[in-house]
């Protein structure tokens, strides 16, 4: 028997309880998932309703325990032949490091990846999807688990001497991530401008380097230094990345003479209704609501305002800018109005509120072309919908479309309907929509990966329709069996940056409701 199998079988004998727990938890997850479907059909799964509402504590616990037990299994398996210290018996035995590493890899693949793969295949099959059609996505899920969980956990396990030390190191990593997240909030534009791919590549490289360095040479100090160095490098990278240049590259400035794909004009009369708006939370921030009239959007075009950079200048020369912030506002042809929210620090607001200011906005925009339009009448019961998996419009409490998609949510699925033709019974409190009022709902996921990371290969989501009334308020429209809708899959065709200036703007006048 070769060394790989000797070590693997030894680990199996020693860690059978841990591996059994990991497999049992995955089985419980699968059982719980399938059980949640069997009662009340697809619509019953809506978050907060149906079976899932009966089991959330257990469901949450299982979901939490699975990665914890995986971490435990990884740490135990690797530390079975600890790479830290100078008293381990195995270092003076004829263990070949490549074979030892292979044995540990085999162990992790056998007791983490393989059961997960089997579970994913089972869930896809149980949900009515043919697993063989989703092999790439299934393998992608395995790869993401390896990169997100296994690789960093293995790297930490190689530089720690015990499970307690491992979890302590993990806690330090979590604290570092929380600190990094806080720091990222303090650095303007960092959330919007960073692609993260460079950090991701370094992350994988450092994890691999630590694992190889430890197995080949057991240079624990150097390996720990590498991890700490990477942590410091990430912080430095976070601080020095030229986010604005990156945004400028991703969203090139609209050239002079080019017509912007949309026009926004501030409409002072469209004052927001307090009930429709988020309230200011805490004493630190002030929210300024900017109601705009929308025009100029070509038919078959959809505009997404990805991010906005606000620059405010008061008459006394005081300047403030927000850095690039995510917005995620969609503008559709025929849409009459929209609103953006400017979040100001209270100190800045207090300094500028007394007199009008010049407000300059840079908008990072993606233009989509509405493609693959098709008419569709929502059937009864569960039905298949291209890109969206299996869907249902029958739900006891809400009137949205619920779907269960294999591996990932659609890149962009737009549902358009004449709100007046909804077959749902309207509630007494709502006046029926005008004839021809366009209601829209959509689900979009920018990622181009073949699957979303996680344990569950099924992505559940709901799409509700809303339509704009004359005021900036939106009203919901139900999707019920028999409702005629238009489905389409918008595709991005252009990214650009455009500017908008508002002169003599009164911040105080547009301030939102306070709690």
């Amino acid at each position, binding site marked *: *028997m*070769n*060394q790989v199998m*000797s070590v693997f079988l*030894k680990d199996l*004998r*020693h860690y059978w309880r841990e591996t059994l727990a990991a497999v049992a938890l995955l089985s419980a997850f699968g059982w719980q998932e399938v059980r949640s479907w069997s009662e009340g059909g697809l619509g019953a799964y809506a978050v907060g309703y149906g079976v899932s509402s009966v089991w959330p504590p257990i469901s949450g616990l299982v979901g939490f325990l699975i990665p914890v037990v995986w971490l435990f299994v990884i740490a135990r398996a690797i530390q*079975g032949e*600890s790479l830290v*210290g*100078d*008293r*381990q*018996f195995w*270092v*003076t*035995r*004829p*263990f*070949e*490091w490549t074979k030892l590493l292979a044995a540990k890899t085999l162990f992790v693949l056998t007791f983490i990846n393989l059961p997960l793969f089997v579970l994913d295949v089972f869930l896809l099959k149980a949900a009515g999807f043919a697993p063989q059609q989703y092999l790439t996505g299934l393998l992608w899920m395995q790869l993401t688990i390896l990169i997100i969980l296994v690789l960093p956990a293995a790297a930490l396990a190689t530089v720690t001497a015990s499970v307690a030390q491992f979890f302590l190191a993990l806690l330090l990593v979590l604290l570092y991530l929380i600190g990094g997240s806080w720091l990222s909030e303090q650095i303007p534009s960092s959330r919007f401008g960073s692609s993260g791919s460079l950090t991701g590549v370094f992350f994988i490289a450092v994890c691999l380097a630590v694992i190889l360095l430890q197995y080949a040479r057991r240079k624990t100090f150097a390996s720990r230094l590498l991890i700490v160095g990477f942590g410091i490098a990430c912080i430095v990278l976070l601080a020095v990345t030229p986010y604005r240049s990156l945004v400028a590259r991703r969203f090139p400035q609209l050239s002079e003479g080019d017509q912007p794909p949309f026009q926004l004009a501030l409409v002072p009369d469209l004052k927001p209704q307090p009930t429709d708006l988020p309230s200011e939370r805490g004493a630190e921030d002030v929210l300024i609501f900017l109601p705009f009239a929308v025009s100029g959007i070509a038919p078959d075009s959809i505009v997404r305002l990805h991010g906005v950079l606000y620059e405010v200048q008061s008459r006394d020369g005081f300047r403030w800018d927000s850095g690039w912030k995510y917005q995620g506002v969609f503008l559709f042809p025929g849409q009459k109005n929209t609103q953006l929210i400017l979040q100001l620090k209270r100190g800045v607001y207090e300094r500028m509120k007394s007199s009008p200011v010049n407000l300059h906005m840079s908008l990072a925009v993606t233009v989509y072309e509405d493609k693959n339009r098709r008419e569709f009448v929502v059937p009864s019961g569960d039905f298949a919908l291209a890109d969206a998996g299996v869907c249902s419009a029958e739900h006891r409490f809400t009137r949205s479309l619920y779907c269960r998609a294999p591996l990932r949510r659609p890149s962009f699925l737009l549902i358009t309907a004449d709100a007046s033709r909804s077959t749902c019974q309207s509630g007494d409190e709502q006046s029926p929509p005008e004839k021809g009022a366009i209601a829209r709902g959509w689900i979009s996921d920018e990622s181009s990966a073949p699957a979303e990371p996680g344990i569950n290969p099924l992505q559940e989501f709901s799409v509700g329709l809303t339509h704009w009334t004359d005021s900036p308020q939106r009203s919901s429209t139900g999707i019920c069996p028999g409702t005629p809708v238009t489905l389409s899959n918008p595709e991005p065709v252009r990214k650009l940056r455009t500017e908008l200036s508002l002169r003599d703007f009164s911040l105080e006048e547009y301030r939102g409701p306070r709690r």
Partner: protein
Amino acid sequence: MKDAIRTDNLTKTFRKFDALRDLSLSVPEGAVYAFVGPNGAGKTTAIKILMNIISATQGRAEVLGLDSTELRGRAFTSIGYVSENQELPEWMRVGSFFDFLRPFYPTWDRSLEEQLIRQFELPLDRKLRNLSRGMRVKAALASALAYHPKLIVLDEPFTGLDPLVRDELIQGLLERAEESTIFISSHDLAEIESFASHIGYLEQGCLRFSEELTSLAERFREVELTFAAPPRMPNRLPETWMHVASSAAVIRFVESRFDEARTSADVRTVFGEAKDVTFAPMSLRSIFLAMARAGRETA
């Protein structure tokens, strides 16, 4: 004769503390080399460098012709290493421990394994964690002998063991002495004296001497001079005389470079009035103590 172990100016520094200073020694193949020295002398550090468990700050070491920094994997099929503070897989039963190790060694001798298990009375169904200290050392030693290693390295294997267990271990070792080089560090000088062929004495990280035990025994003598009347102690004494002490009409010292003719001549030169001179051979323990005391006096 080839050297099984050879070190050149091996130095190990932990921050500002020199654990080992310019250690140069050679252990010929087939030797039973006793590596002795007081606590904290640097014996374990030296052995860990030899076994590539830690790296040296300076200098180099060769083990079975291989640079010690290259010592890993397959090279350990020829080396058996047992240390007093080695962490064994405590959860394993003794039998499983042997089962686990067997495939790693192409030269593993099943009949020798069984013989060692019988000789050391190892309980195969007991977990290593449930064994007494002596039994654990026996299990570790048996697992390090069963594949006929060319080199056996033992770091303080006898510490804290009762005499019976020590004898059993030594017996087990002696039976392997013909086919292996044995490098053993220990405080247990009495036992080592009975079977060591070579000895190295390490003190404060420095090797004071390294030679064959027979030549060491020849080199050290306890000298006793008897006088008619209490003699006058001269200011200068030969450098090879250690611990010179006088008591009434008797002077005693340890000669560390004994040669009967030369030592007698030295005695006559320094103490011409001595009535009687006796040269008594010393035990290894006495030599060790004399060296240790001399080291402390010069420190």
